[in-house]
């Protein structure tokens, strides 16, 4: 148990202070590139010898960013912009900005004219028609373009062999994340929702190889724990982010374990490996066509809903918690049909709206307490 706790604490410490990771990498002489969600080709950054640094917002009040974005844009983008405007991300050599949701489309210009050219923007376009050959080819061409920009920043060419090696590191990390997620679901008494989230999220701020090492050790340590019965509830989560400390504490207070997820920051990002292909960049583009369960992806037929229900059944969840990122259009559109699908499948689903600028979670607490009572009934 001590080893489990020690490793979880170590990863939680990374999450609690990502800036320290950035500072350490820069002090080490390693360039860092900020990576905004969703599905930026992180492997290319890593292949260029740089550290991809995840930009998933922060729990803080955004003020300066409101000179650029109106208040009705998600806090994820507001707070990343706020950090940029306050100079907290000046050590980044660039940021990658996918242009895959309407709010993200405005981010690049707001950054460019607010933060300045010191941290240049790399626009990342990919095909919404991501499964058809022309879509894969377009995504490949755009990722190659991104690679050229990364090479200029790194000051060196990146070979296909280096990209292939990076893909292998990322696939190993994804495998480690899947194994950890499964182990955590079997040991809810040992891995709280807060600890689970931090262990996964830490990977966005660490070298992925190092993260894999920690996760593998953690999974092995969890497997060695004696069996223990869990009397609490089991839920799966869905949404963009479910990393709010206050929200996760409410789950813990109500004896609710997260036994699976369909969260963009979590499993959606590691459920599918990058295929190994002759042109490794094409493999990264193909992966985009294979990922499901994320509202920013073109999803005719709402595979997301089907996948979510299958997941809930597979892990024997008592219910689904939809962590709704406030002002996120794609999530708000998906909610209605997916809720109907869950209702039809007889799986209780609760949506709780979360915002990184929120300070009072009492409404969420009341809703979750009521949901827990219903699930226990």
């Amino acid at each position, binding site marked *: 148990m001590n080893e489990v706790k020690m490793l979880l604490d170590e990863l939680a410490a990374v999450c609690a202070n990502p800036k320290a990771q950035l500072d350490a990498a820069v002090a080490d002489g390693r360039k860092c590139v900020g990576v905004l969600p969703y599905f930026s080709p992180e492997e290319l950054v890593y292949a260029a010898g740089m550290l991809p640094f995840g930009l998933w917002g922060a729990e803080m009040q955004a003020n300066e960013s409101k000179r650029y974005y109106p208040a*009705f844009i998600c806090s994820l983008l507001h707070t990343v912009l706020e950090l940029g405007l306050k100079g907290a991300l000046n050590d980044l050599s660039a940021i990658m900005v996918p242009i895959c949701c309407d709010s993200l489309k405005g981010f690049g210009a707001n950054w460019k004219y607010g933060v300045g050219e010191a941290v240049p923007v790399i626009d990342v376009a990919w095909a919404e028609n991501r499964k*058809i050959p022309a879509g894969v080819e377009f995504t490949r061409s755009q990722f190659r373009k991104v690679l050229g920009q990364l090479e200029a920043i790194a000051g060196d060419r990146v070979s296909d062999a280096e990209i292939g090696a990076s893909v292998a590191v990322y696939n190993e990390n994804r495998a480690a994340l899947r194994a950890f997620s499964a182990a955590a679901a079997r040991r809810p008494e040992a891995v709280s929702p807060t600890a689970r989230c931090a262990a996964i999220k830490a990977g966005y701020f660490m070298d992925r190889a190092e993260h894999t090492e920690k996760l593998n050790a953690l999974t092995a340590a969890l497997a060695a724990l004696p069996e223990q019965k869990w009397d609490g509830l089991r839920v799966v989560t869905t949404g963009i982010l479910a990393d709010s400390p206050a929200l996760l504490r409410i789950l813990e207070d109500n004896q609710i374990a997260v036994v699976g997820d369909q969260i963009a920051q979590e499993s959606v990002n590691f459920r599918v490996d990058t295929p190994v292909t002759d042109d490794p960049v094409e493999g990264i583009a193909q992966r985009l066509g294979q990922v499901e369960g994320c509202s920013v992806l073109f999803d005719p037929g709402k595979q997301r809903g089907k996948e979510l229900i299958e997941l809930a059944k597979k892990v024997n969840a008592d219910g689904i918690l939809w962590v709704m990122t406030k002002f996120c259009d794609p999530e708000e559109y998906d909610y209605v049909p997916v809720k109907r699908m869950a209702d039809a499948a007889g799986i209780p689903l609760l949506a709780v709206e979360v915002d990184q600028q929120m300070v009072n979670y009492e409404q969420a607490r009341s809703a979750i307490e009521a949901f827990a009572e219903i699930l226990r009934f």
Partner: protein
Amino acid sequence: MDERKPAKIVLRELQDRIAQDAWDAKQRGEKVGWCASNFPQEITTAMGIPVVYPENMGAAVGAKGGGQRMCEYAEGMGYSNDLCSYSRINFAYTDLKRCEELEIPFPDFLLCCNNICNCMIKWYENLALELDVPLILIDIPHLDAMTCDADRVKYIRAQFDDCIAQLEEITGKKMDYDRLNEVMSISQRSSKAWLRAVGYMSAEPSPFSGFDIFNNMAVACVGRGTVEAADAFEQLADEYAALVKEGKSTFKGEEKYRILFEGIACWSNLRFTYKTLQSRGINLTASIYGPAFSFLYSNLDELMAAYSYVPNSNCFEKELQLRVDDALKNKVDGAVFHMNRSCKHWSGNLYEMERQFREKTGVPTIVFDGDQSDPRCFSEAQYETRVDALTEIMEQRKKEAAQ
């Protein structure tokens, strides 16, 4: 003396006829589609496939006073009031199957295009599921440079061809490529005539009230591949030319000030937004809808690129340039920016757009909060106060210039 009906009547009748054609086709058992406003209309026009436009319905329902009722109904279905009001109106209609302000025939297929925004994709995904009809998406990625690159053109072209194949299967109608060339050529006539018509806004006074653009652009959007539309726009341009020659205008009262109006109209508050300006002698003489509905091209590859240049699909610098050029050409004294609650894409850079626009043009600007079809997001008092402030500055500047 010209015995023809005025062009604005011809355009209105043409719009009604296009809508009626869709109902008649549905009645005959033909397949009818719902279509995104900036979907390449050349495909459906050339194939003789009737389509209707939920966005236009959203605007019309808003203008006729049904926006709030329909939006609230959609919210009752679980849709957040954060979402685009056009889509909420459409979801409400899809569920209710009726709407007292305007109805459109229900679709057998959906044609989606995200060059204006990605929320179109989610909206149409939900419709496809709800109505159990096929969905075809032409994805036009947002531009990250001033021009559309060859990779984008290739990708859009492949989807264009895929779309034709899928439509042939769904409707049983075949694409005639000679007819496609003809439609492309007619569309060029319409686009050039539209550009010529709106180009007359540079005259002083402008020969028309700029709010007319909001009415006329509906046909520019849905019917520009038809000979009737091309003729009507040419007639409209001729009428404006005649007014300019005579120094006359359809704008009621003296045109004291000229402004750029940025963003979609507040359809639910159209009269108020118009009257507040008009009563102060302010005419709209510049709007992105002028240059944006041109779609100029000379071959298929250029057509693909043209659909990347619609408002909101361009990079920030291009969007800014379009507005600044339009404002300078049309000699505006000020600008009104609509922070449209429905449109995260349009609003996401609006503050920066306003700042840089003001710097580059040197004219005063205001921003007001509103919505394209949900009147709950619009405040008459706020709008009036800000327009008053703008008027004062424009008046002061005119006095200073006269001294």
